[in-house]
């Protein structure tokens, strides 16, 4: 893995942006939205969606909780789903129900493989344009992945992992063009994962 660390660039960022970005390094860990029971489902769900169940890189659940507590939505919701906050609570409850039905255990206790299988079921239904419980599965999948990816890829650790240089203000970029790097950028591998 390349050892690009975007946080080494913070001296070149403006103060307002730096404040907003750095806050994500230490979000409030006292959750305000999710109940304990919901956390037991939401934390493994979110960490598995982001592939960080074995090594947590980004406090994604905390960032999602802050957002839902503030009622900060994307400015729309599907007319066959309730508002985001209610949709989150309902889908977490259903995931727990699915675990109980299949394994007679809460979602948090069925183990990573079974958790992945339960999540995969929702994605499969989504790709077949079917309902999961009473919601269109594709809209549930969209809700989960939108919130999870927004939290994860807003974080400087994730930027370092993909070689992204972050705010770039007020410095900007000098070297435009294919394969033209700034002196502080680092080369990244061109393939990863399967197509």
């Amino acid at each position, binding site marked *: 893995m390349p050892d690009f660390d975007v946080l080494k660039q913070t001296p070149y960022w403006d103060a*307002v942006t730096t404040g907003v970005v750095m806050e994500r390094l230490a979000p409030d860990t006292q959750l305000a939205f999710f109940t304990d029971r919901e956390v037991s489902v939401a934390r493994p769900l979110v960490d598995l969606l982001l592939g960080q169940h074995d090594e947590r890189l980004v406090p994604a659940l905390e960032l999602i909780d802050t957002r839902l507590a503030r009622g900060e939505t*994307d*400015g*729309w919701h599907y007319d066959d789903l309730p508002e985001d906050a209610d949709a989150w609570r309902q889908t977490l409850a259903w995931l727990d129900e699915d675990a109980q039905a299949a394994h007679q255990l809460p979602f948090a206790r069925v183990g990573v493989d079974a958790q992945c299988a339960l999540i995969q079921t929702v994605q499969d239904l989504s790709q077949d344009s079917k309902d999961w419980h009473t919601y269109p599965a594709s809209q549930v999948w969209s809700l989960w992945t939108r919130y999870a990816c927004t939290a994860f890829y807003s974080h400087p650790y994730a930027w370092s992992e993909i070689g992204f240089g972050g705010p*770039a203000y007020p410095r*900007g*970029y000098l070297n*435009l063009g294919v394969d033209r790097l700034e002196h502080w950028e680092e080369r*990244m591998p061109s393939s990863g994962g399967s197509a």
Partner: protein
Amino acid sequence: MSKLSYKSIKERNESAWLLPNDGTRTNHALRNDMRRYADGDEVDLVVVGSGAGGSVLTQRLARAGWKVVCLDAGPFWDPDTDWVSDERGAHVLYWTEPRLIGGSDPVPLGSNNSGRGVGGSMVHYAGYVPRLHPSDFATYTNNGVGADWPISYADLRHYYETIEEELPVAGQKWIWGDPHRYAHHPHPVSGNGEVFLRGASALGIRALVGPVAIPNGRFGNRPHCIYRGFCLQGCKVNAKASPLITHVPDALAHGAEIRANCHVSKVHVDARTNRAIGVTYLRDGMEHFQRAKAVAVAGYSIETPRLLMLSATDAHPNGLGNDHDQLGRYLMVQGAPQTAGRFDAEIRMYKAPPPEVTSEEFYEDDPSKPYRRGFAIQNVSPLPITWAEHVSAQGHWGKDLRERMSTYVHWATLGALCEFLPRAENRVTLAEEKDRHGLPVAHFSYSQGENDKLLLKAAQDAMEQILKAAGAAEVMTITRDAHLVGGARMAATAEQGVVDPEHRVFGVDRLYIADGSVLPTQGSANPALTIMALAARLADKMIEHGRFA
């Protein structure tokens, strides 16, 4: 363009010279000293919304000596302190009041197409400012689809030219539609633009750099672009044009009041005279009434129909301009599939502004195709969060998602704008759900037609071919929508639309619509320039109307 020729621009719009020249972005003195009207003052015009349409109209009429108050639901931005050079942090720029979406192809709103605050969604648009083509004004007559406008391209040409100078626009000599030149030389292209040009050239498809509303060089007190790539997050540099810096400063200098953080909840029509007489607005939880001799609504394609529906009276029980069930209908989005290609070399598509290269080779109707009308192709450059949407849309999640994301800097991306056709059933209605003011929110239903689906496929094919011709090792596509227009369309008669060719709402006196909702068709062009040009033309018409009133 020489300094000398800026003189004529400065004489009609001094905005760029009214910005500070000391490294800050906001002329606070101009705002603090702004003329302020009392609610009880009967102003000549109240404008609802200070985006592309509302700001231009306000500036033009203030210059003509009108007493104008422009109300905006959002803040009066200061790019230095309110905006961040960060994808997630740009959330405040989007209209995120609740809205419901439905139909067979629901259209996400918010960051995708809806702005908040002074400057409107042009604060976070990419900066592409193509004109419509002359053919866009008569698609029904020429191609048997869409609608004919009651005005022609010739009616707008002069206004396209003047707005292009005021933004100003950089780009190569334009060869499509009505050929024309731009005042500023094209910007240098990044890896993303280079890939587009290379692939297009290999296939014999013409592609050009521009048209981009970022001056190439200083313009007034606006500094040169620094190519940081965050155009969609609000330009902290003051380089990319938005009404906040291109029209609002001049409006203030000529006595207009821009009243921010005021949410208009109702347009009032006098029952006896049938004239618009002012608006109710909410500020800090309190209701106010601003009197006016005329009202212009410029809240864009969702909020404009919603406001006119919320303003229903005994004489207009289904809303203003809705006596023939036309309000909210024919709302359009452009199909905007984005195709990305992975290269062995590093592209780093986020370096340089996202608007770079355009091809309008597929724009015009081609009788040999199975679909009518066409599409344009442009560079787009998704930042990490949006890029994760691209990757997760292919079905990737977990470790797989992370690994796929790790090649981010090796991808180049193209976006198409497909001319989806206007359909009566694609419309805004009022939902049962209420917003925090207790007002019913908008429901936006959208369903694609067969022609729309054929266009999406053709655009994806063309983009895949271009990227492969440029040497992409693999390609992937995500289907999205872009822009909003229509919902209160311009028509010759009240049975066919909501406003007449001079933007007057049918059935009510002295009520105008000055935003993108009046467009009867959309072409394959980003709508901002056309909305501004229409507003500039409307200002001239209103000055004429005023003379007769």
